[in-house]
């Protein structure tokens, strides 16, 4: 775990309202694994840090992907190259590609694309056949960047690729990795109970002390998205108790 003041080194648009921010964070770039996240803070900004899956990592740089969904993300997107972001990470437990799978499907909806480029990189490096499946409401909202041997697009309105969700559009595979709204991940759990899913929760510290990011488990009790997660076997989670809509509540 590292705490760095990371200067922004670039920003690019990848879909309507969706941007990738690049930061110079060498220690984190060197350590991060697919599915892990960073907790970002900035000044002036909200009190609590905001968790982001690491979208890209190359050399000494990491990338995150975001949309302006609230005051905090709007502030982040208003920052310029050279501005510094306090970057805590890498945090959490990422995807597990071991166990000898031959094929992997990376299934994402909307901003759930966030952990997939690193997952694709690691899976391809391990010699897996990678199917990239990405869905959104409409073509303009699909993340334009895709990786893998096969790419499948899905849109709710049919404006690009398969009409329907990424979950219905995806093929079966030895290993399924998924990320997206928790409602979508509940559908993943129905279809592939053994899939690995990266969940989104409210988060306080990101380091395991506040117990704010409780994930309800089917065996009873809770554990911490920031420590034991954010990646879980889909069948482990009590989806009926996991909040599906997470508007951050910064009022000021």
């Amino acid at each position, binding site marked *: *775990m590292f*705490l760095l003041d990371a200067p922004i080194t670039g920003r690019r648009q990848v879909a309507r309202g969706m941007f990738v921010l690049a930061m110079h964070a060498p220690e984190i770039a060197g350590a991060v694994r697919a599915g892990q996240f960073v907790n970002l*803070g900035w000044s002036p900004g*909200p*009190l*609590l*840090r905001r968790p982001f899956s690491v979208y890209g990592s190359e050399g000494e740089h990491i990338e995150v992907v975001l949309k302006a969904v609230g005051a905090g993300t709007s502030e982040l997107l208003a920052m310029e190259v050279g501005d510094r972001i306090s970057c*805590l990470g890498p945090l959490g437990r990422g995807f597990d590609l071991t166990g000898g799978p031959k094929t992997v499907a990376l299934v994402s909806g909307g901003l759930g694309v966030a952990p997939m480029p690193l997952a694709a990189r690691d899976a391809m490096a391990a010699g897996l056949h990678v199917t990239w499946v990405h869905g959104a409401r409409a073509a303009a909202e699909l993340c334009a960047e895709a990786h893998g041997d096969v790419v499948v697009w899905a849109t709710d309105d049919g404006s690009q690729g398969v009409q329907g969700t990424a979950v219905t559009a995806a093929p079966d595979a030895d290993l399924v990795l998924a990320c997206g709204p928790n409602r979508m991940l509940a559908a993943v759990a129905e279809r592939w109970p053994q899939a690995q899913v990266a969940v989104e*929760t*409210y*988060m*306080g*510290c*990101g*380091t*395991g*002390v*506040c*117990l*704010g*990011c*409780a*994930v*309800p488990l089917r065996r*009873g*009790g*809770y554990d911490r998205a920031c*420590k034991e997660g954010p990646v879980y076997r889909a069948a482990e989670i009590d989806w009926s*108790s*996991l*909040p599906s*809509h*997470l*508007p*951050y*509540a*910064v*009022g*000021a």
Partner: protein
Amino acid sequence: MTADMSVAIGGLQLRGPVMAASGTFGYGTEVPLLERRALAAMVSKGIFLRPREGTAPPRIVETPGGMLNAIGLQGPGVEALIRDYAPRWAEWDFPVLVNINGESASEYGELAAQLDGVPGVAGFEINISCPNVEQGGLYFGNDPHAAAAVTEAVRKRTKLPVWVKLTPMVSDIGIIARAVESAGADALCAINTFVGMSIDLNAYRPRLSFRTGGLSGPAIRPLAVNLAHQAARAVRIPVIGVGGITRSEDALEFLVAGCAAVQVGTATFVNPKAIADVHDGIAAFLESRGFNALGELPRYLPRD
């Protein structure tokens, strides 16, 4: 020259005035980035006799300058605490106090008895902001008699330092402070979180599944400084200030207002090095003003 930062509080000699507040530091095993030299003491996450699952999510929500939490005192219970954590605390070079909780005065007493003498346990912080199940769920901390009864129940079962963490949700904190002082508390912590609520305008219901939560963070600091000051004026035992401390200047406000030491809580969530930053900032302040020791800091503490 470096100012002497040590303080003696309620039976403990501490190397500095800055501690980790309960519930914001776990059991001390999860904040790897903090330089422990600055940590005067740690108060553990609150513990009950038995394991507790905690509340359903959402458990936290951010509010202007603060956050609401309703974790529900999730914890492993006292047996697991003694087995898994106390042995590690025994090896550390700062004292660990256990934040104890119960549904009745006798449960608090039983917890203290079980933890008394366990290597690694240096003392107790009583959380009196729990509902008293035997008295219809009234909070111990809102009633001077119940607060005193809990303090006495713990005091009888241990010779270790007993601190009492006061709730701010009272009309006169001085009355509660004096009641627990008379019942044998060695020090007071002022204050616990304020009870608050935040509404989701899309769902037309509270954002927290528990409905209400404890408000912490910079938003409560002026309220906390006042209440800690009121408590300090009311008693002779030391008062430890807690509530919204993010920077060393915040901690110095509590110290000048009559507190002997401080606890840093929510700030650690944001900045894992907050305790060291606050400690170093206090030291730098003392040096810049020409003080040789924390004890030389002027205090504003007119006695009632």
